[in-house]
């Protein structure tokens, strides 16, 4: 029987545990849902079994909508993680229970029971009780019990979770054999990559309630689309390089980008290198080899059949390392490598050559749009043109301290988002303090920008309160924060302030990226005190900034202004030449500058935390 899930969502306390999951499992397939704990995979099983009802979406079995069908009539076999074998019944009675409920005659029941006990390799043990059996045996009893009434679908929730490694391997094989021989459509949930590879005909990778990608084990390993799946299945090294002319530059190396990976000039492209794709050689490689130069071995661990290594190569200009996360202050690029253990150990300073690699798909830009649920909605208004020109996905976030308002809040947010012209955003409501929840949400989610309204806020008690972005910035936000102010319009001119010292690289990258997508022009500004000569490197820095923008395909100019303070310089320039967006770094003075610009110039501000871009 095929199972279909269409846009299924399940929320607990306003939080989507399962978030718009669409999936089809074929008849007779053994499908594995893989994800970390809390990713919502077990909830999907419980939804299919009818133990809980979805808040949204449809679940179908062989085309038939299961919504009105109670758990008892779905004909689903469920093996729970703790097995839940009935203690006061013998193993045999446990297996027969489903048949007894269905009024099957005693002799027929006994026949089926013995058949199943043989199938799972427990022949003759039907008279035992739960406390007389081992974990592995109980798991097989649970399986036999779930199969007794010939279910349409078999659901297994971490069936090997409680067992030791050796028994796991045995039971995996026997489960596979049983599933094959019966041909029953099966969904198995696990957090174990090895288990998923060994059992799954197809695997679905889940993260935070979302089904990220689905594919055969070999497909997912060789060609993952998302960073999460790449990391969860197999690991390795992920480097971020810049895209120029359909190639990604990693230092002196250029790797071609396949045509099916959408990319644009200047994009940051993520390159996945699996450990076995890194070759460590004693002799200098041929010039056409994809060499990253000479490295140094940091770690060398023997683990049976393979040897796992970590090797560091000198810094590659313009390359950022994503995975493994670089240690603070560490220079250079660290790569994970592996090699068959029977081969000779590599020299201490080997040449590092990439034998192959995989380019991850560009992630869709994600905006986190925070809305109050009432009053004016500057964040939503600003988000609309951004979503349109960035081709981004917006998540509208509301925060309430009152658990009873969660549903009303969600409805209000959906309505306001629609009114602002945002098409099908996902809506999240968190309970708690506004600032804390915004900071945690951006920390948990893969967001590129956080958009919040920055006008004065009418509180529920009717007081006018200043926006609390200062606290959000102080909360160590890692994502650029877009403070929306005034009537939204097209963003055509962007001012990037390099007010103090050298232009921050993050500000220029983030501002430049936005400018490119929005088709906006950029002004780079540097402010000096009247009568003071700027430091000699300032003009050079500004030139470099403009060059960086040019590389991104953005037209930029730079200017220097004399003013008593950076804020005055910015405001002075804005009076002469209006800009639609001011970009500042989230440095020590950043918050003060931001507050003044918002209040006095009335234009939106993008605050870019250092190193966030």
């Amino acid at each position, binding site marked *: 029987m095929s199972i279909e899930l269409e846009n299924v969502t399940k929320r607990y306390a306003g939080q989507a545990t399962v978030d718009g999951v669409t999936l089809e499992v074929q008849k007779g397939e053994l499908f594995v849902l893989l994800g970390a704990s809390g990713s919502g995979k077990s909830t999907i099983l419980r939804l299919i079994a009818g133990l809980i009802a979805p808040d949204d979406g449809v679940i179908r079995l062989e085309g038939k909508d299961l919504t009105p069908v109670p758990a*008892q009539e779905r004909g689903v076999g469920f093996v729970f993680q703790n097995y*839940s074998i*009935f203690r006061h*019944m013998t193993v045999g009675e446990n297996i027969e*229970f489903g048949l007894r409920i269905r009024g099957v005659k005693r002799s027929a029941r006994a026949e089926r029971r013995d058949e199943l006990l043989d199938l799972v390799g427990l022949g003759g043990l039907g008279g035992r009780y739960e406390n007389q059996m081992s974990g592995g045996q109980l798991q097989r009893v649970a399986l036999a019990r779930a199969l007794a009434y010939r279910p349409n679908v078999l659901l297994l929730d971490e069936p090997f979770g409680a067992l030791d490694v050796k028994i796991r391997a045995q039971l995996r094989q026997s489960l596979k054999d049983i599933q094959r021989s019966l041909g029953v459509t099966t969904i198995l949930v696990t957090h174990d990559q090895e288990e998923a590879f060994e059992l799954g005909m197809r695997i679905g990778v889940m993260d935070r309630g979302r089904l990220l990608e689905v594919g055969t084990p070999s497909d997912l390993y060789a060609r993952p689309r998302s960073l999460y799946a790449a990391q969860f299945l197999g690991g390795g090294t992920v480097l971020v390089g810049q895209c120029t002319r359909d190639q990604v530059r990693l230092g002196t190396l250029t790797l071609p980008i396949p045509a099916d990976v959408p990319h644009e000039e200047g994009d940051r492209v993520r390159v996945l290198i699996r450990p076995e794709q890194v070759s460590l050689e004693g002799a200098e490689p041929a010039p056409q080899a994809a060499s990253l130069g000479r490295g140094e071995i940091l770690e060398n661990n023997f683990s049976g059949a393979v040897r796992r290594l970590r090797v560091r190569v000198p810094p590659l200009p313009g390359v950022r390392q994503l995975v493994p996360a670089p240690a603070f202050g560490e220079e250079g690029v660290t790569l994970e490598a592996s090699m068959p253990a029977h081969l000779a150990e590599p020299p201490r300073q080997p040449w590092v050559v990439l034998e192959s690699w995989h380019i991850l798909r560009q992630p869709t830009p994600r905006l986190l749009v925070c809305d109050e649920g009432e009053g004016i909605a500057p964040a939503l208004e600003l988000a609309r043109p951004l979503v349109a020109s960035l081709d981004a996905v917006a998540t509208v976030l509301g925060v309430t301290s009152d658990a009873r308002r969660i549903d009303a809040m969600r409805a209000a947010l959906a309505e306001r988002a629609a009114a602002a012209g945002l098409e099908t955003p996902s809506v999240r409501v968190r309970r708690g303090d506004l600032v804390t929840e915004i900071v945690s949400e951006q920390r948990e989610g893969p967001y590129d920008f956080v958009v919040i309204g920055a006008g004065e806020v009418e509180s529920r008690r009717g007081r006018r309160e200043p926006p609390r972005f200062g606290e959000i910035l102080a909360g160590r936000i890692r994502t650029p924060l877009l403070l929306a102010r005034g009537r939204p319009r097209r963003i055509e001119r962007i001012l990037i302030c390099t007010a103090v010292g050298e232009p921050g690289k993050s500000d220029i990258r983030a501002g430049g990226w936005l400018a490119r997508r929005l088709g906006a022009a950029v002004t780079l500004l540097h402010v000096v005190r009247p009568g003071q000569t700027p430091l000699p490197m300032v003009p050079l820095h500004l030139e470099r900034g403009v060059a960086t923008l040019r590389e991104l395909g953005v037209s930029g100019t730079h200017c220097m202004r004399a003013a008593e303070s950076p804020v005055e310089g910015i405001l002075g320039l804005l009076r002469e030449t209006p800009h639609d967006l001011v970009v500042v770094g989230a440095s020590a003075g950043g918050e003060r500058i931001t507050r003044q610009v918002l209040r006095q110039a009335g234009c939106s501000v993008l605050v870019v935390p250092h190193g966030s871009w």
Partner: protein
Amino acid sequence: MTSPSAPSAPRAAVPVGIVLLVLLPLILMPLSAIFIFAFRGGADDFLRVLTSRDAQFALRFSLLIAFATAAINAVFGTYTAYVLSRYRFRGKQPLGIVVNLPVAIPTVVVGTSLLLLWGPIGLLGRLLAPLGIQPMFAPAGVLLAHLFVTFPYMLGAVKPVLDEIEGTYEEAAYTIGASRWQAFRWVILPALKGGLFSGALLTFAHSLGEFGATVLVSGNLRLRTQTAPLYIFAQFEAGNVAAANAVAAVLATLSFVIFFFLLRYTERRGR
């Protein structure tokens, strides 16, 4: 070498002796006094007193009420335990306290409160009186008082067992095809057997000995609402010590038997 921290088995005689010395005047001697006084007039006398109409009624009435109380509270107590253990709702904690309150309230207060509610001038009793319904000073009143006083015992015996059964236990039954009732009947109830048994015995024993609330709500009417403890009290007051002692001896023996079973049962489960 023997270490000083592991002395040879301590001699039991002294501490056991002390315990016995304390228990003797506190518990054992009063209990034996009952039997000694009960049989002072000889077995014939004992039987004669016991077979008197009043004593017979009191004993039978007490046993009947105890059976009814145990049966009714087995159902209500189990259901309440099930609700408290399986559902999450607002006010669950206060409810958990309220249902255990009867253990903490003096039984005399329970009797008074019942009178103030159901009595002829009570809040609800006043409405019932014109209909000719009068629960107080009637067997129904005694039953009400006993249900009230013994309610927590069933709950206390069943709820811990229920709490220990994982939620997936029932869910497993549902996915297998069992209805809510079938899951309860075939999966939960058998697991509760021990708790039900000991809870029912405890309730029965407490009902059998209940005095404080009963004396107020029953009106102590002989051959109508007089339970065994009330009979003992009344006979004592009338100076009829032999009659009081005979019934007291029967009550004590019944309690022994009940607790013997209870102890045996819990011991067997404990192993």
